[in-house]
Every structure is written in structure tokens, then in C-alpha cells.
């Protein structure tokens, strides 16, 4: 049995499927004649076409003809005459076919990636797939692209955002990754898709072989490899109760989120890209509490244009209207590096040049994002949020830039708020509250900065705890300061989605909880059964340690 960090609850029973980037060393010069190398190329192309035709037929039958079309497009790319001519030029100079594929296809990948269009960037991924598979065929390396039939539990080192493009949602029962923590990209993706995941399992992951039967216990963070009959039966039992509970939550769909004492609460969603919208709408959330705009800046090699940003913000605002959408301005740096910004290597990235600090220096980029946001604001109810605010001066400077830009955009309408994720901001929350319409508490980083713990560092990650008494007191301080100033205080960090925390946060006066879509109904059920009890909040000041806080929240 393996153990890991529980990233998204739920149980999965299925077949293990490793996703591994097979590293094949490319030999530049060929040992055989140009004629033989050419026929080697043609034979591999033939086999590539057969493989794609097989995949297309299998997909059409098992998934659908629409999905099968992608392999037709792959076939066309593979048989492209212009590319073939270029590859032949390399073969005539004595290069190997692998070298020809690598150089020619990389050129087109670069060209497609530079195009200002998401569709073309996806085609770059197709080209990468084709190159890897042809090189596999040339070196008779077995093709491990997941066959689409059986239901799979994906096992991988880490699930990068770009790999998720290849995940077939219909056949993915769960994820297991070697690295990462509760708030790593792969965990967030799993929660958004509402499927079980365990991350940070470490090197023991090697015990899992392709095809092993696995039980993935997302509740305890445990993985059973080739379980015996009784263990499997007991898990099937748990699976049943979980689905019954899910059915009982359905009655909360499209209901208002209101406490027993009549306080209207906003249960909202965190999203990282426009692709998450279907899950948000499906959850009937009351709004979007955090739209991480970084996805527009990542996985590419140049800044996103104002137009491209405008389209993304407009799409989300329109689909959610009239419900509010909180969009956080660019928060890059720390664990989210972006090569083309040429950010220097920093000793402490989390204490470094990132997010609002970059925006206040590179004001053209900041203005571009703000203009795109303000132009999109007439399509819905926009709330702009600045991340990493640590002082009143920073807030006022950023606000001045925003007001200058909004003068250039006719009838722009928006609310302005800030993330409270730095202890300094928490301590002067009363001063900051006068200049904004709302706060949103970013608990993930607030806990890190308050207790000086890097949540992704396996050596200390167990010290990272939302149940630390200091953090609980800080929450009370922020929420009270915001309420005293008459602004709305919300929360978009992981704590907002923890069921056992919701009652205390309601008693503290938190008005908005933003979480992953799969938690919305569970949270609404708790809110709609909650009776305000302000007295409870005073008791937190007697709690001395993590165990006492957990007991207080009856965990």
C-alpha cells in the first residue's frame, strides 16, 4: 500500500496507466546509405499511418466519431508533402530520419506556438505527438499512448497543464503523481474535474506497473495495488455510499445559499482557465471568486495580446452574468515562472519580484491587462482583484493606474478588491479596507508566510497547517476589519472549501467562499443548515495548538 497527499477526495477502482515521456536519444548522422535511410523513413511513415487509422477506428467506436477526427488530422500532418520534402533534404545530407523529424517538426511547432491563437497552439501539440510517435516507431519503442477503451487511473511524475490537454476526461478515473502537494496544478485540475487524486507519493510510485489494478482512496490518500477480493468489496461499498451522498446533494443544485438566520452567502468557484466554465455552470455556483489570469501568460513564449485577454475575460463574464466574476490580475513569479519575462533567478521567489510588484514596474503590461478587463466589464459583473498587496502605498499606486486606464475605456463598470495573503496586509486590513470594495483571503500563501513554511517542500510540508492558532486569529482579524469598514470579505484559498471550517468562518462573518466546483453543493448544504453563533468566535483565543483547533472544529 502506498501513501500520498490527498488532493481530491473520492474513491477510484481501475487499471493503472503510466504516462511517461520516453527519452530517446536522437543520433544525428546515419550509418546507412541515403537510399536506405529514405526507405526507412517511408516504412516508418507507413506504420505511423496504420497506427493512426487503428486509433481512429477504436476511438470512433468507443468514444465518438467527432473525437476520432483528431487522428484524421494527425494523419494529414504525418503525410504532409511540404514537410516530407524538407525532411528528405536532411536525409540527402546523410542525416538520420529521427534527426529530420526532430529538426523539421520543431520548426513548425515553434511557428504554430507563435501564432496568436489557441487553436494553432493545440496543433503544435499534435505535431509534438506525431514527432514522438514516429521516433518511437523508428526505434521500435512500444507506444504507450493510453488506449481509450478501459477506464484508467493515470500514474505520472507530475501532471503539467499541457498534459491535461491529452487527458480523455471520459476515461480518467483518477490521478496519482510522484510530486506535488494539495495545491499543485495537478491537484487543482483533479478537483476542478471532480475526480479523485493523490499527489506527492514520491519514489515509491515505481511499485505501480502498467496494467496493475489499483484502488485509489482519495479520502485517506492511500493506494492499494492489486487488492484482494475482500478489500475490493469493502471499497465498492464505500463507492456506493459516496454516490448516494452525491445524489442527496443534487437537491441543493440551483438553490440560494442562505443561512438559517437569513444571511445570504456567496458560494463561488476558483477557475484557472476558460475551459473550467462547464464545471462551474454545472455546479450552480453563485459566482466566480477567483479567476487566475496567469494561464493566459503561461505555456507560451510571448505576452498575451489585449485582444486575446479581452476574449477570455468576456467569455467568462458573459457566461456567468449577472453573477459576479472576480478576476485576479497577473500573479506570476514564486512557483509560476514564465520564461519570456526574463525574471532573474531569485533566492526566495516567494519573497521576491512577483505579481503586483512586476505590474507596478512593467506598467505597459499591467495597463494592457487592465484595459482588456475594463473593456470586458460591460459583458457581466466584473470584480478586479490585485494579488500580493503588502502596503497601502502599493494599493493606492495600483488603484491610480486602474483609474487612469478606466478613464480611457467608456462606461467601464467594476468593483475593486485585494487578496489578503500577506501578514502585513492582514495587520493593516482596517487601513486597506477604506480603499477597496472587498477582500478575498488567499489562505494558501497566507499560511505559508505566517508560519514560514513552504507547502511544496516535502521536508516541512507537514508543518503547513490551516489549524495553526495564529492563522485562525489572523482570519478573525481580517474578517472583523473588513466588516467594520462595511466591505464584503471572501476567501478563495483552499480553506474556503474545507467543510469543517465553514461554520466557524460564517460565525466570523465571512460572506463569500470560493472553491473548486466539485465542493459547491457540499458547502451550500452546510451553509443552509447553519445558525449564526458569534460567541463561538471568542473561544478561538483559548486554543493553544493544532490539535485543540482540530478538536474545536470537531475534525
Amino acid at each position, binding site marked *: 500500500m502506498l501513501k500520498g497527499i490527498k488532493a481530491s477526495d473520492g474513491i477510484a477502482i481501475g487499471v493503472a496507466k503510466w504516462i511517461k515521456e520516453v527519452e530517446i536519444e536522437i543520433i544525428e548522422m546515419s550509418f546507412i546509405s541515403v537510399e536506405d535511410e529514405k526507405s526507412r523513413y517511408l516504412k516508418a511513415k507507413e506504420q505511423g499511418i496504420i497506427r493512426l487509422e487503428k486509433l481512429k477506428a477504436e476511438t470512433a467506436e468507443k468514444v465518438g466519431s467527432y473525437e476520432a*477526427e483528431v487522428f*484524421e*488530422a494527425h494523419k*494529414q*500532418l504525418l503525410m*504532409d*508533402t*511540404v*514537410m516530407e520534402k524538407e525532411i528528405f533534404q536532411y536525409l540527402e545530407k546523410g542525416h538520420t530520419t529521427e534527426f529530420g523529424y526532430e529538426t523539421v517538426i520543431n520548426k*513548425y511547432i515553434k*511557428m*504554430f506556438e507563435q*501564432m496568436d*491563437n489557441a*487553436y*494553432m497552439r493545440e*496543433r503544435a501539440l499534435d505535431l509534438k505527438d506525431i514527432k514522438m510517435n514516429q521516433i518511437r516507431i523508428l526505434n521500435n519503442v512500444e507506444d504507450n499512448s493510453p488506449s481509450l477503451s478501459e477506464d484508467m487511473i493515470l500514474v505520472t511524475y507530475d501532471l503539467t497543464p499541457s498534459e491535461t490537454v491529452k487527458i480523455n476526461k471520459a476515461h480518467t478515473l483518477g490521478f496519482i503523481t510522484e510530486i506535488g502537494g494539495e495545491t499543485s496544478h495537478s491537484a487543482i485540475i483533479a478537483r476542478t474535474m471532480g475526480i479523485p487524486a493523490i499527489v506527492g507519493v514520491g519514489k515509491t510510485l515505481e511499485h505501480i506497473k502498467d496494467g496493475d489494478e489499483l484502488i485509489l482512496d482519495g479520502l485517506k490518500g492511500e493506494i492499494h495495488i492489486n487488492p484482494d477480493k475482500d478489500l475490493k468489496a469493502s471499497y465498492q461499498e464505500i463507492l456506493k455510499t459516496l454516490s448516494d451522498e452525491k445524489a442527496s446533494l443534487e437537491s441543493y443544485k440551483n438553490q440560494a445559499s442562505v443561512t438559517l438566520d437569513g444571511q445570504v452567502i456567496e458560494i463561488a468557484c476558483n477557475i484557472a482557465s476558460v475551459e473550467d466554465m462547464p464545471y462551474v455552470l454545472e455546479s450552480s455556483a453563485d459566482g466566480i471568486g477567483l479567476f487566475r489570469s496567469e494561464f493566459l501568460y503561461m505555456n507560451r513564449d510571448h505576452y498575451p495580446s489585449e485582444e486575446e485577454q479581452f476574449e477570455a475575460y468576456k467569455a467568462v463574464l458573459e457566461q456567468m452574468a449577472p453573477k459576479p466574476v472576480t478576476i485576479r490580475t497577473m500573479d506570476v513569479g514564486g512557483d509560476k515562472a514564465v520564461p519570456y519575462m526574463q525574471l532573474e533567478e531569485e533566492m526566495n521567489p516567494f519573497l521576491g519580484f512577483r505579481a503586483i510588484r512586476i505590474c507596478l514596474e512593467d506598467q505597459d503590461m499591467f495597463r494592457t491587462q487592465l484595459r482588456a478587463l475594463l473593456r470586458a466589464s460591460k459583458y457581466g459583473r466584473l470584480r478586479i482583484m490585485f494579488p500580493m498587496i503588502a502596503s497601502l502605498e502599493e494599493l493606492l499606486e495600483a488603484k491610480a493606474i486602474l483609474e487612469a486606464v478606466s478613464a480611457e475605456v467608456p462606461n467601464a463598470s467594476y468593483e475593486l478588491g485585494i487578496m489578503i495573503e500577506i501578514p502585513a496586509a492582514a495587520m493593516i486590513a482596517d487601513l486597506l479596507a477604506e480603499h477597496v470594495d472587498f477582500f478575498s483571503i488567499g489562505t494558501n500563501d497566507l499560511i505559508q508566510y505566517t508560519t514560514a513554511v513552504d507547502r511544496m517542500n516535502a521536508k516541512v510540508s507537514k508543518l503547513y497547517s490551516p489549524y495553526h492558532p495564529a492563522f485562525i486569529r489572523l482570519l478573525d482579524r481580517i474578517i472583523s476589519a473588513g466588516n467594520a469598514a462595511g466591505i464584503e470579505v471572501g476567501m478563495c484559498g483552499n480553506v474556503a472549501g474545507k467543510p469543517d471550517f465553514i461554520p466557524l468562518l460564517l460565525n466570523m462573518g465571512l460572506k463569500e467562499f470560493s472553491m473548486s466546483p466539485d465542493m459547491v453543493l457540499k458547502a451550500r448544504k452546510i451553509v443552509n443548515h447553519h445558525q449564526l453563533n458569534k460567541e463561538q468566535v471568542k473561544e478561538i483565543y483559548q486554543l493553544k495548538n493544532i490539535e485543540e483547533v482540530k478538536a474545536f472544529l470537531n475534525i
Partner: protein
Amino acid sequence: MIKVVMASEHGLHARPASEFVAKATQFDSEITIESNGNEANAKSIINVLGLGVQHLDEVIITATGSDAKDAEKALAELLGASHA
């Protein structure tokens, strides 16, 4: 040589590009497609995608060879017809 306006909302991307190249390869003639001053080999998906033809762009299709007339007509029809 024949001129036609790109009807499909997606421009010459996604399915339309795939269908366009598949149709072009059925003809023997040499066929080129030109848009915004760039030219591409109509039988190469890489070239056609690289052209990045947008919705409502005007394109010129030129075929030379035995079945040039039919090729131009068929391809123009394909691009002119609006795709759902």
C-alpha cells in the same frame, strides 16, 4: 484563378482546413491558395494551417493542370459554403 470569401466562422482552421486539403489532394493539378499576400500549397496541411486564413478573408485559388477548372470550382464551393 478564382476568388472566394472564407465563410466558415473558424476561418481555415479545424475541420475546414482538413476537408480543404483532403479535397485538393483528389485532383492531379498543382493547386495554390493565396491570402493576405501569402501563398500556400493547397495539398499541404502544414502550409494551409500556416496561412492562418480568418473568417471573411478573401482567398485566391489557382490550379494548373488537366483538371484545373474542376479543382478550382470544387475548392471555391467548399470555402464559400458556410460551415456550421
